[in-house]
């Protein structure tokens, strides 16, 4: 007779001393783990609920400006520094970790219109309503020294925006025309105009560094090559675009914030129709900034909210608002992909988490693992109606809620009318125009 009976040595299964961690032998046999799907679903549901519970995105408010915050700039080398310019011509440097202002300077008379940090991070440029471009040192002046710009350029017209080249000592401003400046010279090395118009924003392409794009007040977005003497091409839309931002990872895409409450992502090569139309705001969109991963972008709107959009989705995944925040004028996504900074009319800069439910600080490995696991589960079951309902629900201020509803009704009415017109017209005479094509008037080369 041969016999073997299960007989386990308890020493193999319990810890030796109290200082050890408990032993957990695993067996992944599916027969020992019944109801896999239902349990995962329950976990996903719990994770979704917890995510909503822990969604506390607002971190801090930086106050100190004495007028509305008109522009902001990220430091190119330093995560904890932020620059902001206000409508009274004041520029402030902030230490984000300590939530305090480290330096204040009166840069311009009137608005500070644009601000950019040089790629090396040692100095920054500002433009203002007083028709000047000023270059400032990043370090504060020593004791007894006066706060003075490194360099001042007096322009002929008002500048409304500026951006710096990624690698060279060249920067671009916009106003009545788009100018390219060499840092060493006091007159522009190149000027671009295309019809009489004024420009509201200009941005260098982060990858093809010689390319620029600007938003013009004649409802067009114009592309330039710095090496050529004339602009490349432009797309004219039904409404004016306020600002634009290049996708830092796929730099042939850019997103522009438009007056018609939408944002449009364009492919630089095919301007005749946007790749995606991002809807959800209920008022003009004033600013947009991409996350450094290029997967999402954040937009600031006149409707007093900030929205975060996945780059290829038509609707936002997140909306931030507070009772006190007024029209949001400028927005930045921090370079570590974790925070969002918004500057608004009521003189405050607000610091938000980019991922509302994320736990800040150093995570223990197990904590990180659990977070990753629940994230995956949420992704897996995101389309189940119950989970979807919980994950998508956001509380909105009353007026925005009602405005959204009203807009929906208006849109539906328009659609209905179009349908009726089509029905009573000769077949084919009223073609179906998709949402993407609707907003593009023409492309000019």
């Amino acid at each position, binding site marked *: 007779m041969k016999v073997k009976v*299960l007989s386990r040595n308890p020493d193999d299964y319990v810890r030796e001393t109290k200082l050890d961690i*408990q032993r957990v032998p695993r067996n*992944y046999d*599916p027969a020992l*783990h019944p*109801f896999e*799907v*239902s349990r995962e679903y329950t976990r996903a549901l*719990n994770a979704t609920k917890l995510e909503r519970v822990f969604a506390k995105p607002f971190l801090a408010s930086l106050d100190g400006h004495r007028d509305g915050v008109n522009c902001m700039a990220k430091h190119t080398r330093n995560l904890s520094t932020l620059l902001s310019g206000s409508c009274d011509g004041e520029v402030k440097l902030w230490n984000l970790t300590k939530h305090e202002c480290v330096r204040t300077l009166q840069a311009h008379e009137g608005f500070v219109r644009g601000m950019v940090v040089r790629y090396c991070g040692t100095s920054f440029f500002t433009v203002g309503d007083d028709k000047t471009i000023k270059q400032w040192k990043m370090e504060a002046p020593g004791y007894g020294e006066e706060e003075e710009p490194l360099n001042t350029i007096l322009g002929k017209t008002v500048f409304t925006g500026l951006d710096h080249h990624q690698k060279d000592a060249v920067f671009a401003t916009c106003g009545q025309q788009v100018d390219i400046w060499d840092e060493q010279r006091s007159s522009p090395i190149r000027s671009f105009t295309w019809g009489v118009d004024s420009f509201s924003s200009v941005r260098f392409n982060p990858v093809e560094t010689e390319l620029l794009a600007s938003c013009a007040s004649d409802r067009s977005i114009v592309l330039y090559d710095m090496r050529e003497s004339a602009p490349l091409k432009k797309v004219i839309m039904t409404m004016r675009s306020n600002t634009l931002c290049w996708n830092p990872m796929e730099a042939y895409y850019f997103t522009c914030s438009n007056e018609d409450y939408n944002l449009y992502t364009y492919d630089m090569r095919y301007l005749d129709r946007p790749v995606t139309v991002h809807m959800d705001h209920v008022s003009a969109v004033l600013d947009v900034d991409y996350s450094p991963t290029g997967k999402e972008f954040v937009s600031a709107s006149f409707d007093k909210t900030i929205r975060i959009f996945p780059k290829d989705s038509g609707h936002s995944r997140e909306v931030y608002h507070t009772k006190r925040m007024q029209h949001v004028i400028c927005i930045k996504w921090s370079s570590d992909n974790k925070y969002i900074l918004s500057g608004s009319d009521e003189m405050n800069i607000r610091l938000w988490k980019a991922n509302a439910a994320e736990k800040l600080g150093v995570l223990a490995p197990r904590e990180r693992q659990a977070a990753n696991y629940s994230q995956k589960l949420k992704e897996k079951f995101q389309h*189940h109606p119950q989970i979807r309902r919980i994950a998508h629900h956001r509380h909105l201020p009353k007026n925005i809620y009602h405005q959204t509803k009203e807009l929906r009704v208006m849109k539906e009415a328009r659609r209905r009318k179009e349908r009726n017109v089509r029905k009573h017209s000769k077949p084919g005479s009223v073609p179906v125009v998709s949402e993407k094509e609707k907003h593009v008037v023409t492309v000019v080369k």
Partner: protein
Amino acid sequence: MASPGEAAVGNTHVGEKKKPTSRYWEEPQEDGKHENKVGEDGEQTERSLEKKTRQTHKAKKRKQEEDQGDGNKFISGKSDPFPGPAPIPEDRLQKFKRRDKTKKPRRQHYKLKDMIASSEEASEMAQKQAARLDLLLPEDAGFLEGDEDEDTCTISQEDIADVVDITSATKYFDLKLSQFGPYRVDYSKTGRQLLLGGRRGHVACIDWQSKQLMCEINVMESVNDVKWLHSEAMYAVAQKKWLHIYDSNGIELHCIRKFNDVLRMQFLPYHFLLATASATSFLQYLDVSVGKEVAAICTKTGRLDVMCQNPHNAVIHLGHSNGTVTLWSPNQKEALVKMLCHQGGVRSVTVDKTGTYMVTSGMDKKLKVYDIRAFKPLKSYFLPAGASCLSLSQRGLLSAATGDIVQVYRDVWTTPVSKPYMAHRVQRTIWGMNFCPFEDVLGVGHGEGFTSMLIPGAGEPNFDGLDANPYRSAKQRQEWEVKALLEKIQPELISLDPTELGQVDRATFEQRHQDRVKALGFDPLAKEKFIPKYKKKGRSSTGSVERRKRQVAHEDQRDVIRKTAEDKMKIEKERKKREKKEAVLSSQRSALDRFKK
């Protein structure tokens, strides 16, 4: 087949006649490997011949090429004798396979295609990892083999207990409890605790491995059934009138008056549901985490004293006196399935761990095995005395109680069984029987008390520490309890197919819409009735309103006519096409036409 570099490696092997060290993963595929080797050898000799003929002129150059061609070569000149990842046996991979590959979507869904590809890759990786880990599991299952011409069923328990180690030998024992007679038995989910319920009111819970008595009470009432709840801190006792819950110290926690005349109970551990079957033919579900009755179903089938659960999908199986077995979920007032299994009443039902097989025994003295997924009978056996009690172990051993004899069968569903695997006689009629999880032990409750038997090969050798850990500490138990409560499955999710939730909802829009119409009682997407707008300056007179209504109705009618006309045209077109085809076919004459009338 082999790259030149590999051939060079092979040559060195042949030359040295050195056998590679045998590895454990090579064992199951020994034959296949061997054949391969022969083939390789043949090829290599061929290769070497070829080499010799060519060596005369281009030897140097070829050698250089070889060296460059093989990237895997070590600098020392030796190469890895086991290149690549270790092979995983096919059967292990199969064990962890969740589902077949998804059909690839058409070309335009390129994003979906990428997504499916990446998720499939991930799941394949997980499957492989799990299969790899499976090789490293520490324990092996028990077994019992007789000598030549020795029947395993003749081996007595004493013999086994003599042979095995001391700890295992202590697992064979008898408890003489003749006073409060026949006993029901239940093991806790980890298999550490044993609960005994005597017909005449004696309830005892024992840590049976250390033989420590946790509590012992007499409820002074007849006891129909006992059941552990989710942990060893609480158990339920079905007494003469009501259902009572006690804690492990024997203190009565609840008397649940909603549950009367309970005869049998089952606990669904992942749903925290206690399902009870009563003499008044009610099947009731109690949520033990919140203490609420989830469902009470009147089965209208008389006294319910045969009950078991399907551990795979948490469906309750009830056996009835008319020979049917019915399947129940708390979400439906009627049975999910009714199966006629026996002529005469059903005496006992049990379902295996994977939810594939159901074993029933009836008054017709038959023991039947069903495939419960396809509802098909697989095997039917005749037991002279008929089995009053059935129980399946984790590894698929079936124990059947016939009078005072316990018979254990092996592989009842795959091969026709003629002899039991083991047999044992207890003093008096058997009343309750249960295999202990994760142990080779069968607990038998009978008129004289309780017998714990050794059944080698019954229990799952490797437990999962996060699910049911027999060696868990109090702290670990607390942790587990919180986790388990957090992922309590809602009773609404109980259905015949537990994976239904993870499948793509392919119900077409129309179907869903139809259901919605049925549920709402009206069609939410139906065209609204036209209500004419009120207009001023006398333009809303009855006549003009009527005229406007008529205009709209006329427009609608035109739409309908247009559509039907289009449909007709389409049908006509198709018919013509078909006729044309037929005409072409009929014009071709075949040799067989002359046989046609």
